[in-house]
């Protein structure tokens, strides 16, 4: 019998410790005299960081994902939301987050439940229909100040000075507001330092997922999910380890050659992460090499060209350094706004379905994928936008694609046998037999 294992990433333990510490720090931030803010994961964390070195942030989506990973806690949270009459079809991340905040509980990465750490303020970018509404309600209920940032200006290839300035002006306002609600003086020096770090992080993330274009792909998607929200981890070591794998031709799976390369499109089913990914890897020896989500959500890409084609080429940090010399607040805010508006891959997809369609079509080629499993995720309307559009485009192209349905943060709405059945059928279509049947 072929035994497939996931090639261990040496630096994982270090990341795990950083992440555990980060959540612990969040829960203790205010007790220790620090500041805590919360907002969407799309928010620009470098902006509030000018308030001091002891500023922590609780990104809504990553926290909700952590929460969803703990199945029982997630189910209990979802049931609580049903009981208090919050629409079942509302953003599932929002539902579990609201439940955590309204019930006053907070879960750490080891599953320990502690008191919900009340943020000093909520500050969020609004790009999907739920973002600002999410923090607005919770801010009112808990009596905490809240402000949101409007990024309506359109895609990166249509940017002009007016559009950039609209966002930059709001960022200036946000800083004044943060000073007012926290009583702290804002440090531009710190802002500049954190802005460079934020841009570097984005460039690095696109580089890391770009390595998966290699055959075999050096890392599988489940591991990518474990890393991407750890902003201050040992990234150099991780990148070197992945580079080394590419150089040696080592894939993410041990004990088997990469038998297939499968892409996804959405966030993963957090409560059944292992059951979903490991099933494909262990039973079929295929590598889930990534998704539109994991590639585009955190990286800086060349993104849209003049014709609206999506260019999957990582932006070099050196290029940004050359473009932006940050000597004052306005320059730092401008660099932040422009980089996100122009190079954040997923941001573009909210402005026209054609961008997402083109991004998906070229992604299948760039990453040399064999097939794509689309997750019709009932829990996230924002990223479900244009899903059927690119589904049809993939089919028209003759690219193998299958869909499965569920809710990424609600364990009550994830049917594992059915998901496995979809994977089995899809593998059969791709001509990939279970490993056991060939041994």
């Amino acid at each position, binding site marked *: 019998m072929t035994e497939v294992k996931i090639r261990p990433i040496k630096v994982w333990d270090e990341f795990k410790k950083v992440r555990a510490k980060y959540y612990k720090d969040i829960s203790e931030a205010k007790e220790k005299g620090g500041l805590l803010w919360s907002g969407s994961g799309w928010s620009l964390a470098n902006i509030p960081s000018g308030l001091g070195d002891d500023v922590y942030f609780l990104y809504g989506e990553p926290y909700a994902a952590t929460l969803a990973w703990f199945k029982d806690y997630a189910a209990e949270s979802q049931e609580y939301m049903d009981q208090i009459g919050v629409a079942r079809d509302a953003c599932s991340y929002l539902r579990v987050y609201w439940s955590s905040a309204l019930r006053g509980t907070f879960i750490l990465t080891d599953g320990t439940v502690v008191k919900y750490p009340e943020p000093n303020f909520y500050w969020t970018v609004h790009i999907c229909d739920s973002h600002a509404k999410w923090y607005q309600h919770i801010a009112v209920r808990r009596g905490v100040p809240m402000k949101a940032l409007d990024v309506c200006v*359109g895609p990166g290839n249509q940017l002009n000075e007016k559009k950039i300035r609209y966002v930059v002006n709001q960022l200036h306002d946000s800083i004044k507001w943060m000073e007012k609600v926290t009583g702290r003086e804002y440090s531009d020096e710190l802002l500049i330092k954190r802005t460079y770090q934020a841009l570097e992080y984005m460039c690095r993330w696109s580089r890391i997922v770009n390595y998966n274009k290699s055959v075999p792909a050096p890392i599988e998607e489940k591991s990518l999910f474990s890393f991407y929200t750890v902003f201050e981890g040992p990234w150099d070591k991780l990148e070197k380890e992945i580079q080394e794998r590419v150089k040696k031709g080592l894939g993410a799976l041990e004990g088997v050659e990469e038998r297939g390369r499968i892409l996804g499109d959405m966030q993963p089913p957090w409560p059944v992460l292992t059951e979903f990914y490991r099933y494909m890897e262990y039973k079929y020896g295929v590598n889930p090499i990534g998704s539109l989500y994991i590639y585009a959500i955190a990286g800086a890409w060349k993104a849209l060209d003049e014709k609206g084609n999506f260019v999957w080429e990582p932006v070099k940090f050196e290029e940004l350094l050359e473009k932006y010399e940050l000597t004052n607040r306005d320059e730092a805010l401008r660099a932040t706004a422009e980089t996100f508006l122009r190079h954040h891959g997923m941001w573009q997809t*909210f402005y026209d379905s054609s961008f997402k369609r083109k991004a998906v079509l070229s992604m299948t080629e760039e990453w040399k994928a064999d097939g794509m499993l689309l997750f019709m995720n009932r829990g996230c309307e924002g990223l479900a936008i244009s899903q059927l559009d690119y589904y*049809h485009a993939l089919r028209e192209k003759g690219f193998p694609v299958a869909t499965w349905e569920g809710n990424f943060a609600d364990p009550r709405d994830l049917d594992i046998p059915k998901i496995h059945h979809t994977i089995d059928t899809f593998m059969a279509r791709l001509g990939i037999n279970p490993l056991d049947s060939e041994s």
Partner: protein
Amino acid sequence: MLKLIENLSELKRFSEWVDTRHDYAQRWKKETGGKVVGYICTYVPEEILYAANILPVRILGSKVPDSSSRVYHHDMWCPFSHDCLSTALRGDFDYLDGIVTTLSCLHMRQVFWLMRDKCEFDWSYFIPFPHGTTNNPYAEEYAASELENFKVAVEEWTGSKITKSDLEASIEIYNKNRKLMKKIYELRKGDNPPITGLHSMEMVLASQLVDKKAHNEVLESLLEKLENVESDREQGSRLMLIGSENDDRDFMRLVEYEINYPATFVFEEHCTGARYFWSQISQNNNLVEALAKYYVDRIPCPSKDWGAAEGKDERRRFSFIKEIAKEYRVDGTILMQQKFCNPHELDIPGLRDLFKELNIPTYTLEFDQTTPVGQFSTRVEAFLESIGEEILF
């Protein structure tokens, strides 16, 4: 001589316009030689289109079960967006010369993209209008720049310049329309309102579908007559309807005319109601800026109402609703939830809190493409009974 409201020709006209909207638009096009443009969101500045001799008509669904949209449009998108799309896919909007939308909710954005790609209209335009309009000091200026771009795009498409006087005249007609509809709404503050919620919904829907000049004429005539009519129905509970987009005439008819408890809608707070027309455009030197100010300051759609909260609720829409509920002496509120409408459903917990504070009972109903008459009549009757209404018979 007093006349019964139901017999007023003006109300019948509104209803007829809504029923025959496609015929109307095609006739208008033939008679005037102008273009007809469908707009998907009420944040589209119709005034600019109208100034270019274009008839703006709102894209609405047909309330007919049709699954054709499901092929392209996610099942969890709202029934209104599905209805609009399937109506377009059936070819009912083929007479449109173009379509336009603003940065509205995701579902309606998706409808715009799909209509653009599947229906092959001659022209389409997407306005990146500010998404957050409450407590956003930069929204107006930014909106003005995007509306200016839109005006230029319309001029390029039609091949003729929109002059200042064209735009002034258009704004004047639109302002008049808003003013007249508001006057009619205000008549509903008193006891035994002269018109019902069904009438007022049809009045507003018609205004979104026909030439405003013609609509104004009927409104003026209706206002004159409303002083000399009497209602032959019992007012019953005074209800307020709150929602996102709602054009469910069957539901209005059910509540006001068909169930066993008397009730009258005295106010509709949604984009086929007061949100569409409540305020006026202040004409100044720069008309595009005036338009931008109007659209940024209007009673916001839930999707755009997310201003800063300093530990208290600062939703602009909520203050408006609170004021109206008092002014119109509302006995109960129906929260008309368009299934899957995220922006509205995320306001519902806050709305429930607000009405609890006002001591006004609320009831939430979830709406789909068609109205489940039997189920809703039982539920609304139970609600009316719970707020103290007595059975009619």
